[in-house]
């Protein structure tokens, strides 16, 4: 087996280019290297102008998400050897505006996150004097959805978001459901008013790829379908018992 591998890396300079093109780099093929290590090798040794995001190198920060051979992946968790003999094609995450090379703009995503009110909403001004006790069952109801690291791989895998960027998207909806299921939260009615809409949960067509590419097994698709069921139950309750609370 060759001791090098070709990386085809997307390049886009916003002041010169109208669209991205691919540039090939030959990098060492080392058994312990991730794709991110190869990109850092290019940055350090071959072309310092290459732009990409990374931070923790251990699948925690969610910064280094890119398209690796067309699949949304965390490059710090993608073993370079798995792509031998190459070439490996690396591009910016699909469906997001590209600032430069592999760096994408996240403003839209951050706006969507804020929109779903991802914090504990209380109707009262009650401030507990001690920690809020939850049973293991109450914790288990939402714990899976707390593992999201906002890497946005699910958005890059979602064709619905690609076709209609106004769709709230998998991670934000999963986070909304995470708070809806939290026994301390009282904001589910507010969120449902916002998200049981055309741009919210009902835009999801259950492609399911968001859950397949999630590096933390959050399963956003499950969260969205659960949300659809609870929103439908709420709608029936308000229809059958208009005098009651949602």
């Amino acid at each position, binding site marked *: 087996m060759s001791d090098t591998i070709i990386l085809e890396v997307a390049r886009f300079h916003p002041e010169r280019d109208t669209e991205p093109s691919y540039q090939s780099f030959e990098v060492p093929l080392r058994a312990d290297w991730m794709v991110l290590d190869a990109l850092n090798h290019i940055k350090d040794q071959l072309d310092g102008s290459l732009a990409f995001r990374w931070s923790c190198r251990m699948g925690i920060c969610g910064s280094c998400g890119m398209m690796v051979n067309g699949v949304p992946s965390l490059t710090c968790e993608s073993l370079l050897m798995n792509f031998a003999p190459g070439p490996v094609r690396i591009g910016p995450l699909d*469906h997001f505006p590209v600032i430069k090379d592999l760096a994408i703009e996240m403003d839209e995503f951050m706006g969507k996150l804020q929109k779903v009110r991802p914090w504990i909403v209380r109707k009262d001004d009650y401030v507990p004097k001690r920690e809020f006790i939850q049973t293991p069952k109450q914790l288990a109801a939402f714990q899976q959805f707390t593992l999201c690291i906002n890497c946005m791989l699910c958005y890059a895998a979602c064709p619905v978001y690609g076709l209609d960027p106004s769709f709230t998207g998998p991670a934000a909806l999963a986070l909304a459901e995470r708070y809806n299921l939290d026994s301390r939260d009282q904001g589910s009615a507010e969120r449902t008013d916002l998200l049981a809409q055309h741009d919210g949960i009902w835009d999801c067509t259950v492609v399911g*790829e968001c859950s397949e590419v999630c590096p933390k097994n959050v399963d956003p698709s499950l969260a969205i379908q659960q949300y659809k069921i609870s929103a439908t139950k709420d709608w029936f309750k308000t229809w059958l018992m208009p005098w009651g609370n949602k």
Partner: protein
Amino acid sequence: MPQYSTFQPKPYRPRMSPYWYFERWPYLKFMVRELSCVFVAYFAVVMLFQIHAISAGPGAYARFAACMRCPLILDLNAIALVFIVFHAVTWFALVPRVFVRDVMGPGIPDVVTMLPNFGAWLVASAIVAAFILRFI
């Protein structure tokens, strides 16, 4: 006023290809799954005609059966069957993605939610096949 300036470079906004579903197998599978519902509707219509023929008497049913033996219809039914099986299998495979966790709680393995559906499908198919082979 120009929207672009040297100090605020305009990002590149990618557009999805109209043929995006050919780019990855999971997307193509999704599209085939959705479009295969046309064949489900086709079989439902055929079944309605069959029920109508049965209720209209032996002569009408014989004409219906003769029509269904036409090679073109046989080919169409064979193709429809393949798509319907694909439709059913892909939808049942999605059960873990849409399963109501209120029923059994979180952390249920995918196979536990999928297998009962496949089992029920097989049993229902066997009952229908036995009925058709026995009485029709």
